[in-house]
């Protein structure tokens, strides 16, 4: 187990390193363009040259990379060009906001999807199964931006029940969370529900469920004790990896509802070529993604005794 954890941690570190090289190559290697981004397009070549020299951009790229990496690792991401403050000062509050949004989405989406998936997979081919399956296909087919527009049209303009933006300008307001959460849940639950259904249906077909039924166990016990545990193994990984998906989803939703979160920050940074902010956002995103993957692997091992005891 210790070796397994060490291996996972090492792999996580390696991935982060590889990604950091990628990010660095993508954004930093061409010093000239960095200078343009930092100093603006209307600067003279001489000004840029001086800036590049002052900031050590004439060193070989690998020397620069290690310097850059050291700064990143110590949490010094540089200064945001747009907000004119250290990157960390904008990044962390925004990340917290996104965590609140994501937490609410997960708290609703996961139980909903699992229950629907189990109900559908328990009796494959039943009317309930067909309804849930088709319903899940329809909701996952509507892109987040389309459902944002459509839901806003219904609840904001037509029914006027909910606010159309989620800027939270007067402090935290739960009603402003409803639409963003709804959009993400609607788009995301279908995928988990379908995985859960497939997994449950497969387990229900298995010989050990037949054994349990033919042992004369009551249906509840067969489902809850024999089927569910095994059926949860495959979707578990999917659920954890949805955190990764959520990082994509929040970009659209936060942009549409003007919610001050991480996704909107990344988008603003990208559109404004706020290079240090992009770097920090990318690295944070990858950290979260790789971290959840590691978590998923560990959880999977724990859930599956066939791997746990070998």
């Amino acid at each position, binding site marked *: 187990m210790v070796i397994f954890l060490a291996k996972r941690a090492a792999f996580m570190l390696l991935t982060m390193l*590889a990604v950091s090289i990628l990010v660095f190559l*993508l954004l930093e290697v061409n010093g000239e363009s960095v200078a343009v981004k930092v100093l603006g397009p209307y600067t003279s070549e001489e000004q840029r040259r001086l800036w590049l020299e002052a900031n050590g951009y004439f060193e070989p790229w690998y020397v620069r990379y290690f310097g850059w990496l050291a700064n990143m690792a110590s949490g010094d991401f540089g200064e945001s060009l747009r907000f004119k403050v250290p990157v960390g000062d904008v990044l962390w509050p925004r990340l917290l906001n996104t965590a609140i949004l994501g937490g609410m989405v997960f708290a609703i989406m996961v139980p909903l999807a699992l229950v629907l998936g189990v109900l559908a997979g328990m009796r494959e081919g039943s009317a309930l199964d067909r309804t849930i399956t088709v319903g899940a*296909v329809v909701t996952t*087919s509507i*892109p987040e931006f389309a459902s944002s527009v*459509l839901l806003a049209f219904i609840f904001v303009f037509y029914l006027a029940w909910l606010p159309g933006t989620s800027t939270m300008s007067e402090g935290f307001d739960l009603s402003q969370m409803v639409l963003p959460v709804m959009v993400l849940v609607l788009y995301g639950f279908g995928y988990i529900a379908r995985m859960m259904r497939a997994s449950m249906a497969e387990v229900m077909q298995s010989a050990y469920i037949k054994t349990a039924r033919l042992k004369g166990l009551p249906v509840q016990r067969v489902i809850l004790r024999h089927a569910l545990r095994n059926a949860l193994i495959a979707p578990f990984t999917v659920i954890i990896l949805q955190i990764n*998906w959520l*990082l994509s989803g929040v970009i659209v939703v936060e942009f549409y509802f003007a919610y001050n979160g991480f996704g909107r920050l*990344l988008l603003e940074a990208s559109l404004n070529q706020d290079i240090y902010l992009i770097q920090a956002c990318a690295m944070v995103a990858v950290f979260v*993604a790789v971290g959840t993957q590691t978590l998923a692997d560990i959880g999977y091992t724990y859930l599956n005794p066939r791997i746990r005891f070998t």
Partner: protein
Amino acid sequence: MTDRTVDAPAPRRQSPLIGALKAALLLRESIVGTVGALIILFWVFVALFAGLLAPYDPIAQMTPFQAPFATDADGNFFLLGTDHLGRDVLSRIIFGAQRVLIYAPLATFSAYAVGIVMGLLAGYKRGWVDDVLSRVSDIILSFPILVLYVVIITTFGASAINIVLAVTFASGPGIMRIVRGLVLDLRNRDYVAAAQTRGESMWYIMFVEILPNARGPLIVDACLRLGYTTITIGVLGFLGLGLPPPQPDWGGMINETRAMATFAPHMTVFPCIAISSLVLGLNLLADGMREVSLRD
């Protein structure tokens, strides 16, 4: 021992065309799949005959903010109304279909070409080739996908070719994983061993013996992925990173007009319905195909 010939039912000869027709007929057994196929056929028809179907030039500016079913002072009838610049929404949706139906399949196809070669190599060769390819794809896949798109497109600029390349880069590894999994199973089949023992080359075995037998799950996946790519192109348009204007693009149409949705929702809602229906069609078709193939 015995000279009796094994009893055999009458032979059935099958040409590829009949095979395709049969597959289509088989799909008919799935209601879901049929609905999906019809939706897709509808959009393909629209895209193919866009020039004939569209009542107006999609970038011609006429009377702004016309509601659906409105006729303006010049006697122009707008079935779905006009946008803030006076362009006919219906014509823009029709030409937008053409655009998405060119770039989404192109990007998906390109991602598949890369993913299949990588997956075949990793799954068949195993060893260090597999290690390297799998690690690289793990790293790319560990990026949240839209973050990757946003970073790539803002760095290299929004153009059709960049979108195709970005999709290839971002979803090639996912395809590789699927292909690799299928190959790991198929490579142990006896007919692969038979090919090996008659001295076939690696490429022959990969492309002739293995790949055709992986086609079932890959076609289903391609359908789903075409849906994702459609969404991706839509999202990029919506974020203002999509195909450059003024040519109509569904995501772009939504982005340009969403601020005015309070008083002229038709400008935004119709493109939303268009893109959702196309993706729905693809997803339903994939579902139907999977259902039919499992039932066999």
